[in-house]
């Protein structure tokens, strides 16, 4: 009996080795995906990862020099928190990835940055918009626009289009993204002649009623809360039940179908700036939706429906930029990829991508979207440009 079991076991082992050998026909190049899959930004991180995974389906291999490589995605969950990010970054370093994509959220990107730097691995920020991510770093690049730009767009929109004179800003204490964007918004808004009041809340807070009372007491014309998805859904639904009638504005983090769904059936005007508007590229839209239709897990990760978030599009463009960098380098060595990156240019789904001397993509426009209170979908409002 024992002998038979041993033989069966040996057979299984031999077979599985053979199976692996077949699958690993091509040499492998590893791309690290440094994204939150849990925590406050988990929902956004999963949508961004979907963009990368979809791109990996569209382009599963890359020709570097004369060799065809199979691209393997290595996932690392940074848990949306700056104290979990280092261990996720170290995981990617020890896996010997050639290049890193991510993260959703500037705070975690900054926290992981030095580990990539020390290992000589280049990173492409997908939607981390805080200037500090790339400033003074030769290894961190980024494909999206920056917060000074985004803050100015939002302030201009609020002051000129919405006619707001007083703004109430609410952000998470110690979150680089929230606090940075609020600062840039405040500078631009007061520059235009508006008045700004600011409050911060502690991590894990879920009671926003008193903060919303503050906004009402200050006589604010709008609430600006560029916070994580988890907090923004709370803020929107609590504002609705408190009978708040002023618009709620947010940055790119709020561009998620989860947040739009929170505004469904309420009278809250929810307005956000984002990277991509569904409908701008039919080929990308249709291909992505077809994938969601056949993959139930991907659909769940997208929040249960097939609306396309701006972050998903950036995930796609980031992956394509990484492949272009590998081709330009002609090697899968991470140092060579880093050296090749500054000169890389591609025409992405979200527009043309080229890097300036800091490593930031040169971008001049952002999309403004508004949630439809009846359907819970995003609607296109305007493409805002700032000189």
């Amino acid at each position, binding site marked *: 009996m024992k002998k038979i079991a041993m033989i069966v076991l040996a057979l299984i082992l031999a077979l599985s080795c053979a199976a692996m050998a077949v699958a690993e026909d091509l040499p492998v190049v590893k791309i690290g995906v440094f994204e939150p899959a849990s925590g406050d930004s*988990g929902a956004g991180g999963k949508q961004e990862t979907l963009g990368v995974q979809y791109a990996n389906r569209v382009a599963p291999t890359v020709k570097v020099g004369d060799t065809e490589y199979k691209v393997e995605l290595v996932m690392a969950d940074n848990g949306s928190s700056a104290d979990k990010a280092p261990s996720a970054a170290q995981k990617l370093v020890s896996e010997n990835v050639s290049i890193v994509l991510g993260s959703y959220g500037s705070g975690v990107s900054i926290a992981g940055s030095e580990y990539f730097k020390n290992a000589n691995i280049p990173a492409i920020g997908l939607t981390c918009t805080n200037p500090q991510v790339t400033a003074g770093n030769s290894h961190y690049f980024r494909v999206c626009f920056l917060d000074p730009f985004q803050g100015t767009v939002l302030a201009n929109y609020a002051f000129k289009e919405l006619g707001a004179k007083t703004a109430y800003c609410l952000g998470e204490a110690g979150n680089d993204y929230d606090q940075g964007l609020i600062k840039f918004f405040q500078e631009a808004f007061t520059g235009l002649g508006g008045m700004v009041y600011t*409050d*911060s809340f502690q991590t894990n*807070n879920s009671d926003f009623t008193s*903060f919303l009372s503050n906004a*009402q007491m200050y006589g604010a014309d709008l609430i600006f809360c560029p916070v994580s998805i988890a907090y923004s859904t709370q803020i929107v639904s609590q504002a609705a*039940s*408190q009978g708040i009638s002023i618009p709620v504005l947010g940055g790119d983090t709020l561009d998620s179908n*989860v947040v739009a769904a929170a505004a469904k059936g309420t009278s809250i005007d929810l307005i956000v700036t984002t990277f991509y508007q569904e409908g701008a590229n039919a080929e990308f839209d249709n291909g992505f939706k077809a994938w969601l239709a056949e993959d139930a897990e991907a659909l769940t990760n997208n929040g249960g429906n097939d609306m396309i978030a701006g972050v998903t599009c950036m995930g796609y463009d980031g992956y394509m930029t990484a492949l272009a960098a590998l081709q330009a380098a002609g090697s899968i060595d991470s140092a060579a990829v880093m050296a090749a990156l500054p000169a890389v240019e591609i025409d992405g789904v979200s527009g043309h991508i080229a890097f300036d001397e800091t490593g930031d993509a040169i971008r001049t426009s952002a999309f403004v979207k508004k949630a439809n209170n009846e359907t819970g979908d995003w609607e296109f409002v305007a493409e805002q440009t700032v000189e």
Partner: protein
Amino acid sequence: MWDTIFPYLLSGISVGGQYALIAIGYTMVYGILRLINFAHGDVFMVAGIIMVYIAASGLPVWISVLLVLIITALVGFVIERVAYKPLRTAPRMSVMISAIGVSYTLQNLVLYITGGLNKQYPAIPVISDSVKIGSATTKVVTIVTPVLVILLVVGLVMLINRTKIGMAMRAVSKDFETAQLMGIKINSVISTTFVIGSFLAGVGSVLYFTNYPTVIQTSGAMPGLKAFVAAVFGGIGSIPGAVIGAFIIGIMENLIKGLDVILFKAGAISRPLGLAIFSDAFTFALLIIILVVKPTGLFGEKTTDKV
């Protein structure tokens, strides 16, 4: 002035009532077992997650709520039987570490099931509706909470003072071993305590998540911690103490969130100082001050060492 303070007071009374329902669980278990049940905040969170899934299955809301309360009570019962009862004769520290283990087990179980994403809590008819009171608009649950808390506490005090099981509880809390010698089945008394505590945490979770409608595995941590502070503040072991402590903490925390506005409107400061960020710091500073000044809390029992 009153119009300025009122909305904060209202938020405070509401959240205070919800802390109170959790705090009772801490204080009762402490009273009987001398154990700080660190998993209690997570039982509260699990009640919220169970509600999300039961409501998603399409059952009528009132049946869902009832089911949630029953299952939560059952969860409390099972936790006690599995993780605490086998350690009855072990040093108290071992039980406490077992409680921490249960806390992390529950959190990670929920992390595994939900995938670490926020779940939207279902809206419960009537108590989720908005209502206007004076200068503030709020949900009906804000007004229901304090009333319900008072009714439940009165019921609980009656149970403890007037019934046989209540008498047994008091006896066990006075002297564990003597009560056992007098023929009290301590295991059933302890189980009853956990069932009541978890049931109240379940009620608290329905009220709390109706007000702040998303649930994630860490949702129980902050309310649990604050309820624990409330229980210590009121004198751990004392039920009225826990309730009053919870209301004080809830109200103070919300007043501090609005302190800038209140001072600004009163003309005491010319521009906001950003004091709202100190609301949590205040809660925990209060705990330290109470422990230093009056270690037994507001209504704490005096302990006399038996020689």
